C-alpha cells in the first residue's frame, strides 16, 4: 500500500490545474438544459478536446492521453475543484464510448469515437419506454430487418437533453417474436433521420431537460448496430455497469459540492446552529464525500490487481445518489426561507445554485436504474439471496 502520488502523477495534476486556471470561464455558462446553454457547453467541450483534455483516458489516436484510472481521478479532482462546467456529452463519452470500444467494429470506432470526444456529435440515451422503466426487458420498440436496413417503430422516453442531441443509442426489439431480454439489438440512430419526432418533457426545474422520442418507420443501416443482432441485452448491460459504476459520477464532483456546503454553513452559522443537527449533517456529508473518494481509489487498486467489479457498482450508485440528496437537503435547511428562491431572485445573492442542485438530486435515486433495483442486484448478486 502506497497512498502517495508519483512525480509523474503530480506533474499531470499541475499541468491540468494550470490549464484550467487559464481557461475555465469566469462567468458560469447558461443552463445546459436550454438550447443556448447546450451550445455553450458544446463549445467548452471542443476547447477541452483541442487540448486533449476531453477524454484523458482514451488513447492518443482518439484525441485522449492514454491516462490510467488514477490519472483520471486526478483529472476529475482538478476539473471539479476548478469549478469547471458540467460535462454535457457524458452519455456518449462515458456510456456509449466504452461500449463501442468493447463491442464496436473498427469502422464504428473510427466513425463515432473521435467525433464523440470532440462533441461534434452529442449523444442521448434510448433505454426507457412508457412500459419499460425499471423493467427494462419489457422493451417493445421494434427494429425489423429490411435488406441492409432496420426499420424502427416505437417510442423511447426520459431521454436527457435529446431535444438538442445529434444521436441516440439504445435497445430495440429486432426479433418481433422474442420476449424479455432475448431478441434485442443495440442500435445508434441519428436524431435528424426521417420519421423521428422529439417531444420535450418539462422537468422539475421548468426546462425541457428530457424528451420522448417517437420512431415512425425510421430506416437505419445495419452498420448502426453495435454487437451482434439479438445480443443487445448483453451489450446494454455492460453500458449500465459503466453508468452505475465509477465513471458517471466521479467523487470529485461531490467533494467539491461538500466543500461548498461547508462554506455555506460557515457563512450562515448563527442561523444554522439554531437547528443543532445541521452542523452534524454538514460534517457527515463531508465524510461521506471523502469515503466515496477513498472507495474510488480503492476500487482502482482492486482493478489493478485484476479483480472485477460486479454488483459493487450498484452500491456505488446507491451511495452517490443518496449522498447527493443529503448534501442538497442540508443546504436547503441552512438556507431556510431563502431556499425556495430562484437564481435570479435578488435576495438569494451568492447562495444561488443550491436549489437547482436540490432539484436534480431528487432524480439521482431514480435514473440509471432506480435504487430499489440496485438494492435487489446487491442482495441477489452480491449476497446470493434468492430471486423473488
Amino acid at each position, binding site marked *: *500500500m*502506497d*497512498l*502517495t*502520488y*508519483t512525480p509523474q502523477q*503530480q506533474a499531470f*495534476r499541475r499541468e491540468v490545474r494550470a490549464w484550467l486556471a487559464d481557461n475555465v470561464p469566469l462567468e458560469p455558462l447558461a443552463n445546459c438544459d436550454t438550447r443556448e446553454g447546450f451550445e455553450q457547453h458544446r463549445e467548452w467541450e471542443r476547447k477541452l478536446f483541442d487540448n486533449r483534455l476531453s477524454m484523458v483516458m482514451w488513447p492518443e489516436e482518439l484525441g485522449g492521453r492514454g491516462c490510467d484510472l*488514477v490519472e483520471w481521478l*486526478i483529472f*476529475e*479532482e*482538478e476539473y*471539479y*475543484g476548478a469549478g469547471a462546467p458540467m460535462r454535457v456529452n457524458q452519455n456518449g463519452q462515458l456510456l456509449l464510448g466504452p461500449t463501442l470500444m468493447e463491442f464496436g467494429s473498427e469502422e464504428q470506432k473510427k466513425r463515432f469515437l473521435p467525433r464523440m470526444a470532440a462533441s461534434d456529435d452529442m449523444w442521448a440515451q434510448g433505454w426507457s419506454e412508457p412500459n419499460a422503466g425499471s423493467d427494462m426487458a419489457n422493451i417493445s420498440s421494434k427494429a425489423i430487418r429490411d435488406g441492409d436496413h432496420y426499420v424502427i417503430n416505437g417510442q423511447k422516453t426520459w431521454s436527457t437533453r435529446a431535444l438538442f442531441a445529434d444521436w441516440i443509442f439504445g435497445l430495440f426489439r429486432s426479433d418481433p417474436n422474442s420476449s424479455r431480454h432475448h431478441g434485442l439489438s443495440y442500435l445508434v440512430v441519428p436524431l435528424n433521420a426521417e420519421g423521428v419526432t422529439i417531444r420535450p418533457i418539462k422537468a422539475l426545474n421548468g426546462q425541457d431537460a428530457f424528451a420522448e422520442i417517437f420512431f415512425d418507420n425510421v430506416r437505419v443501416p445495419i452498420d448502426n448496430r453495435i454487437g451482434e443482432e439479438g445480443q443487445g441485452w448483453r451489450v446494454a448491460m455492460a453500458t449500465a455497469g459503466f453508468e452505475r459504476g465509477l465513471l458517471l459520477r466521479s*467523487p*470529485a464532483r461531490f*467533494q*467539491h459540492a*461538500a*466543500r461548498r456546503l*461547508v462554506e455555506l*454553513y*460557515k457563512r450562515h452559522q448563527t442561523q444554522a446552529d439554531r437547528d443543532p443537527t445541521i*452542523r*452534524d449533517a*454538514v*460534517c457527515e456529508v*463531508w*465524510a461521506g464525500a*471523502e*469515503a*466515496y*473518494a*477513498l*472507495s474510488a*481509489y*480503492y476500487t*482502482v*487498486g*482492486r482493478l*489493478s*490487481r485484476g479483480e472485477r467489479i460486479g454488483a*459493487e457498482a450498484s*452500491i456505488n450508485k*446507491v*451511495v452517490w445518489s443518496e449522498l447527493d440528496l443529503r448534501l442538497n437537503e442540508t443546504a436547503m435547511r441552512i438556507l431556510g426561507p431563502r431556499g425556495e428562491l430562484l437564481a435570479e431572485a435578488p435576495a438569494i445573492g451568492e447562495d444561488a445554485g443550491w436549489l437547482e442542485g436540490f432539484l436534480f438530486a431528487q432524480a439521482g435515486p431514480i435514473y440509471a436504474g432506480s435504487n*430499489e433495483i*440496485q*438494492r*435487489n442486484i*446487491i*442482495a441477489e448478486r*452480491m*449476497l*446470493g*439471496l*434468492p*430471486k*423473488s
Partner: protein
Amino acid sequence: MDFTFTDDELAFREAISRFLMVEAAPEVLREIWETDSGRSPDLRHKMAEQGMTALSVPEECGGMGLGDVAWSLMTQELGYYGIPDSLADTAYVAEGLINDLPESIRDRQGWLERIAEGDVRIAVGHSVNPLVADAHLADLLLLEHEGEVHVLSREQVSLEDNPSIDSSRRLSRIRWEPSSSTRLVDSENGRALWESALNRGALSAAGQLLGLAQRMLDLSVDYAAQRKQFGKPIGSFQAVKHQLADVAGKIEFAKPVLYRAAYALEHADPLVDVHVSQAKLACGDAAWLAARHGIQVHGAMGYTWEVDLQMFMKRTWALDPDWGDRGFHKSRVAAHVLMDDAQLGPGHTFREA
C-alpha cells in the same frame, strides 16, 4: 498510488481466518465465557503459535515487523470471530505504545519479546475509557495519569469488577496510586505516546466493528435464505433484501476509510486524528446497522440467547463507544472540517496532493 494489500498480507489474513473458524467457534467462546477468568490460556497459546501476537513486534525482538495496515485486516478477523479484548489490546495497542517508548527504557525490549512469544497479557488504561478491559489477568498495566505513562503490576492496583452485557468482556474500574516509582514517561513526552495509543485503540475497535458487521451480515443472509414464510425463503422478499443490501453497502464503503486511517497512523500523517475518527465512525455505523437489521431479519430468534447473533450484536454495542465514543470522534472530525484554513474538497484526500 497503490491502494492494495500485498499477497502476503492477504494470505496471512486468510490463514488467521481459517484458524479462528476452527479454534474459536461460537460454542467454544460460549464455554470460555462460563469460566472464572473468561479467558482460555490454551486458545491464547494457539493464537501465539499462529504468529498473531508477533505481528507488529519488530523483527529484532522476535516479531514480524508489520504495522497498522496489516492490523487493519487482522482486527477485522478478531471482530468476525468475536475474539475477546486481551489479544488486540496486548499485541496491537500495548505493543504499539511500548514500541514507541524511548529505547533508553530498560525493559522495553524484554516486553516486546514477551509479547511476540505470547506469554504476557498487558492491559491499557487511557482516560478516554472509564473502565479497563482484561485487567484481571494482566501481567502488566500501562496506565495514563495526566499525560504520564505509568507501568504497574496487577498486585499494585485494586480492581472493581464491572459486568457487561457482552459476555466476553471483563471490565474493571482501577484504583491505583501514581508515584515516581511507577512513572515510566513524564507528561511532556507521554502525551504524544497516549495520542498514538488512543488512535491505535480506536482503529483496533474500528477494525473489529467492521468484522462484526460482516459476521452479522453473513449470519443474517444465511438465516434469510433458509427461513421460510408464505412458502418462500424470507430472503426473496424485497423488504428483507433491501435491509441486508444496505448493510453490505455500509461495510464496503467503510473498508477504504479504515485502510486509509491505518496507513495514516503507520506513516505519521499529520491528519491521522481525523482519519482515525472517520474510520471509527464509518465502521461503527456499519456495525450498528448490521445489528439492527440483523435482529430484524432474524425475527424473534434474534432476540434469543441461543442464536449466535447475540454474541456479535452485544460485542458491537460494547465496542462502538470504546476508545472514544461518537461524540469524541465527531468532535475531532468537526474540528477539522470547520477550522478556518481547512484544506477540503477534491485533491485533498491524500496528504501531499
